[in-house]
């Protein structure tokens, strides 16, 4: 099956008085890895479920390969979904689980066998085919869920926080594996996560949602370099951007933003600060400082591992080495990045 563009046009979804999505317009082009990023409850799952056909939009249009699918049943949309819970069929063996979508489509037995074998091999499940999901570890279940999705060679993959139930190490491994899978198959992926690191490392583009409203769409580089507003600025990047509402400029209408990695410490910079905490992570240091006395604003500075960090309690001077963002305090919109 050909990979397909997936698009939402002015999609709105209400549950009673809750507005889960308001006028969402978004398109994943054919073969793209598009990440939907946002905090819990912002409508990411709802958007994915609308594309899968598991929810009806209150208004708006859903297209797959350019065709309007609002009235098409989930089973006929030819997209595969990976659920956060994996949703494996507990009464079926791994083999039968992977085979399920093929049998649903009445594929002949030999081809089924071939496809299952191939999917099992690409996710290293060959040894586990006769087990039941209850006998698998979390990581193995996750692989089965992926195998069940890829075996169909669908038009698009919809993944709803597929890695969130894995431990940190497996998550990093699977991240790489998913990217690799996408690179090989070149099938459209819509990937939902609340983890900005996942979003930034995996996505061709990232769409940031907040309270059902789309904030910004762009490549990881773009949303990092030019966050459209304060929300995106503070959501993307780790540690998050330092924001100084009004105070520094004596202009309450403007909020300044500086990323932690764009501060330097101790080379005669203009800002006086006291170090309150140092976290050394091995590959970098996070230094928390307070500018302008005990009740001044807290600033997080990110230093490379090679730089030796200051002591707690030490007086330091801070300088800004790279761009400063200026946001409208009222609307939160980015005014300029210099």
């Amino acid at each position, binding site marked *: 099956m050909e990979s397909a563009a997936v698009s939402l046009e002015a999609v709105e979804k209400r549950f009673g008085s809750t507005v889960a999505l308001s006028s969402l317009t978004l398109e994943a082009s054919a073969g793209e890895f598009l990440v939907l990023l946002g905090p819990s409850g912002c409508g990411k799952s709802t958007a994915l479920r609308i594309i899968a056909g*598991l929810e009806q939009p209150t208004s708006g249009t859903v297209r797959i390969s350019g065709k309007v699918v609002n009235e098409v049943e*989930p089973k*006929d949309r030819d997209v595969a*979904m990976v659920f956060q*819970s994996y949703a*494996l069929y507990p009464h079926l063996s791994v083999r039968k689980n992977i085979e*399920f979508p093929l049998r649903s489509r009445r594929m002949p037995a030999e081809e089924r066998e071939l496809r299952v074998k191939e999917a099992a091999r690409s996710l290293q499940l060959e040894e586990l085919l006769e087990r039941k999901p*209850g006998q698998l570890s979390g990581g193995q279940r996750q692989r089965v869920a992926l195998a069940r999705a890829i075996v169909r060679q669908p038009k698009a993959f919809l993944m709803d926080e597929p890695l969130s139930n894995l431990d940190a190490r497996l998550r990093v491994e699977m991240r790489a594996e998913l990217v690799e899978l996408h690179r090989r198959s070149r099938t459209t992926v819509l990937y939902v996560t609340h983890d900005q690191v996942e979003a930034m490392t995996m996505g061709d583009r990232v769409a940031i949602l907040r309270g059902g409203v789309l904030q910004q769409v762009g490549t990881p580089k773009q949303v990092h370099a030019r966050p459209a507003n304060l929300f995106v600025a503070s959501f993307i990047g780790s540690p998050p951007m330092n924001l100084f509402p009004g105070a520094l400029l004596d202009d309450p209408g403007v909020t300044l933003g500086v990323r932690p990695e764009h501060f330097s410490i101790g080379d005669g910079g203009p800002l006086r600060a006291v170090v309150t905490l140092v976290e050394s992570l091995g590959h970098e240091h996070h230094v928390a400082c307070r500018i302008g006395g005990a009740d001044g604003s807290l600033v997080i500075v990110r230093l490379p591992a090679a730089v030796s960090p200051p002591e707690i309690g030490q007086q330091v001077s801070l300088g800004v080495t790279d761009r400063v963002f200026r946001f409208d305090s009222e609307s939160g919109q980015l005014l300029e990045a210099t």
Partner: protein
Amino acid sequence: MRRRAVREAALAYAMVLPAFAAFVVFVFYPLAKTVDLGMYRVPPFPGLPSKFVGLSQYASVLSHSQFLAPLWNSTLFVLFTVPTGIVIGLAMAVVAHRELVGIRVFRTIFSSTIATSVAVASVIFFTLLDPTTGLFAYWIGQRGGTGILGNPTWALPAVAVVSIWQNLGFSFILMSAALASVPDDLMEAAAVDGASGSRRFFRVTVPLISPTLFFAAIIGVISGFQTFGQIDLLTAGGPNGHTNVLLYQIYTVFYENADTGTASVMAVALFVILVVLTLVQFAFVHRKVFYAGEG
């Protein structure tokens, strides 16, 4: 440590004792007594002493049509009621499972027969099925005569319908609870996986609720073999013994013929049949039934 283990064990036994005592008094003793009574032949005229005949009475009673005919009726009754009751209960549960406006009203109506007793159900249907004044006779346009309960072919199915109807509320509630326990995301995964409605139902829902189906089948068979009230109130075993099920026969032999020996043999036989059927169902169905968590 050992002393503590002994003390704990003693305490555990002490706590089990009351339940065990109740079992001895109300289950084990009556059962043993019944087995024993089955070995005494009761003379045809009252006043004469019973005679110990041992197991020969078991052999003679169990091969006689006074036992075999009611056993067949009971078997038919179970075959009529159990599968139908489960299928209809499940179908209603599937309908009521959808979130539609006003669905609560239907849920209440569907479960309402749980609030009726066998006696109430029997009286309702007795009235409906009355050959001269009943609605049923009016519907089929055939008033008078013996009516359906007096018809040798239709009496047993009619009583079965009453039982199915009366148990429908229970069946519906049981099946609704089972459906509610099937995770939504599995059904959604199956839908996205391209499975049609019927494939989702038979390949996902049914296997996942199979423990409940199994439970309903066992309960149904046991209660089916113990049917008494409907028979007593609707047909009294007639016409001509066509609805004379096993328990009703035991009752007749015991109270009306005062033949404790024969009645005891039949009662023991009914007990053994139910135990064996349950074990067979367990052994046979267990392989097909999926228990969640078993992996």
